[in-house]
């Protein structure tokens, strides 16, 4: 009798995820910059300025795939959740029988969906630019790029729970740029001053970029753990950042 009160969780998760995708897809001011920026930068920096070098195109594809995740994750989670919290929508969901994880899962699904669109555009440009990878290398590259969703989504979440919409957008922008430049996603960190290079070790973007380069056969994979361990630690820190932000909500 009692269980007849609660809607089956998988159905709620699916509907919430679909609604989240529809909500964002109807915001062209959000969706066009976040999806189109990474392929556009890739075409400009790697393909046009790389002067037809397949190696340059491959290296850039690896790091720009990580870059492509950051927009949907930081802005989709950060700014959107801040707006929904400010307007009282989160509170109403919290007081409903909606399973607690459905909201987060839905945002992850939307981030993944929009990241996938950016991946497809990037990979298409890469192929056109002369990138040649084995099936295994493609699979590993897609795996690393997809993995990148998790730490950035957690950081976005932590920002969105703490700040208002405007503040969240501003901070997300700073994080977005810092992660891209200092993490070596646009160009190798070797071009940066030495002091700035050390910052990269604390950034998940750097380690994901290095792992993507390894997946694409552009780096020796011998020292993989040197990136897996810091990535795991920064992801854990991001999870704590998100979780403590969520805890602040309940009074």
């Amino acid at each position, binding site marked *: 009798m009692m269980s007849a*009160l*609660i809607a089956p969780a998988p159905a*709620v998760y699916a509907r919430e995820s679909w609604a989240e995708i529809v909500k964002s897809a109807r915001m062209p001011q959000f969706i066009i910059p976040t999806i189109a920026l990474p392929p556009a930068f890739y075409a400009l920096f790697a393909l046009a300025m790389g002067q037809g070098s397949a190696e340059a195109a491959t290296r850039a594809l690896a790091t720009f795939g990580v870059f492509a995740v950051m927009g949907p994750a930081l802005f989709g989670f950060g700014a959107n959740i801040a707006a929904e919290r400010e307007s009282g929508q989160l509170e109403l969901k919290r*007081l*409903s*029988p909606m399973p607690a994880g459905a909201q987060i899962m839905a945002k992850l699904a939307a981030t993944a969906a929009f990241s996938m669109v950016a991946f497809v555009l990037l990979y298409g440009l890469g192929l056109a630019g002369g990138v040649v990878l084995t099936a295994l290398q493609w699979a590993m590259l897609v795996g690393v790029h997809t993995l990148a969703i998790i730490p950035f989504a957690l950081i976005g979440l932590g920002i969105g729970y703490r700040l208002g919409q405007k503040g969240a957008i501003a901070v997300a922008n700073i994080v977005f740029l810092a992660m891209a430049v200092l993490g070596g996603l646009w160009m190798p960190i070797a071009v940066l001053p030495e002091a700035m290079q050390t910052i990269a070790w604390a950034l998940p973007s750097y380690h994901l970029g290095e792992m993507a380069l390894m997946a694409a056969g552009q780096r020796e994979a011998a020292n993989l753990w040197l990136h897996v361990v810091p990535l795991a630690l920064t992801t854990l820190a991001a999870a704590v950042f998100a979780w403590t932000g969520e805890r602040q909500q309940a009074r």
Partner: protein
Amino acid sequence: MLSHSSPIAALKGATKVYGAHRVLDGFDFALEAGTVTALLGPNGAGKSTVAGLLTGRLRADAGTVNLFGRDPSDPLARARMGIMLQAGGLPETLTVAEAVDLHAGYFARRLPTAAVLDQAGLTALAGRRCDRLSGGEARKVQFALAIAGAPDLLVLDEPTTGFDPDARRAMWDVVCAKAEGGAAVLLATHHMDEAEALADRIVVIADGRIIADGAPDAIKARVAATAIRLRTRLPAERFRAAPGVVKVETVGADLSLLTTAPRLTLEAAFAIDPALQHFEVTGASLEDALANLIQSNRTTALKEAA
């Protein structure tokens, strides 16, 4: 299952402290099925704290909160409750029908979307995006979300803000129908006419305590039951000592006497001012009654403190 007589929701000895301020201290309160209960009182009296504790929005610092025999955070309790918050945003880019359908989907006992839209008076706006609604229309959607799960407890916080009179009456009809169908309704409002039109029971809160609890008529009867309006040239002080009078007020060119013995007061008024021609006798409004209750509560509190 719960027995028929157990309350829908109850606070027992509930205490809520913000910093050094005890908003509620050992507060007892219960809601019964099939009843519209209006919570009234000045701002900061604890109305929204009471509603927040019952719905699980706030946590009590001490005491127990019981919603359908469970903790309010239990999804099984939440599945039987519909809430209309005071600040309730909507998913901007979803249509009205999509927003209602999504929310209704959290509840296994949900009503069909078309039925919810019909009851909330939103059928014509079903395809409109939520960011293109007026304030009153958005409020209707929030009401639709509250009733979408066929709740046994409906919590409404200032539900008709921004409504035109027709829309207001239409929503009141739906709320009354829900209560007649067996739901408990908790209404927090500033509008006395709304409380008077809807409530079977009025609970007045001041300084974190219940100072009156009863049917609207009983609340009005608890204070000076009658207001007498006089057109006189004499000063107000002359009437203050008349039998039964508890309060004298100047209203424009008239005097308004609140009295518990209208007949004696009127006789005395004619004796005091033989030239008295114009007078009007009415029941005290709920607003009068409330103002008096809160005023006398303050006076008592001051005396106790002295």
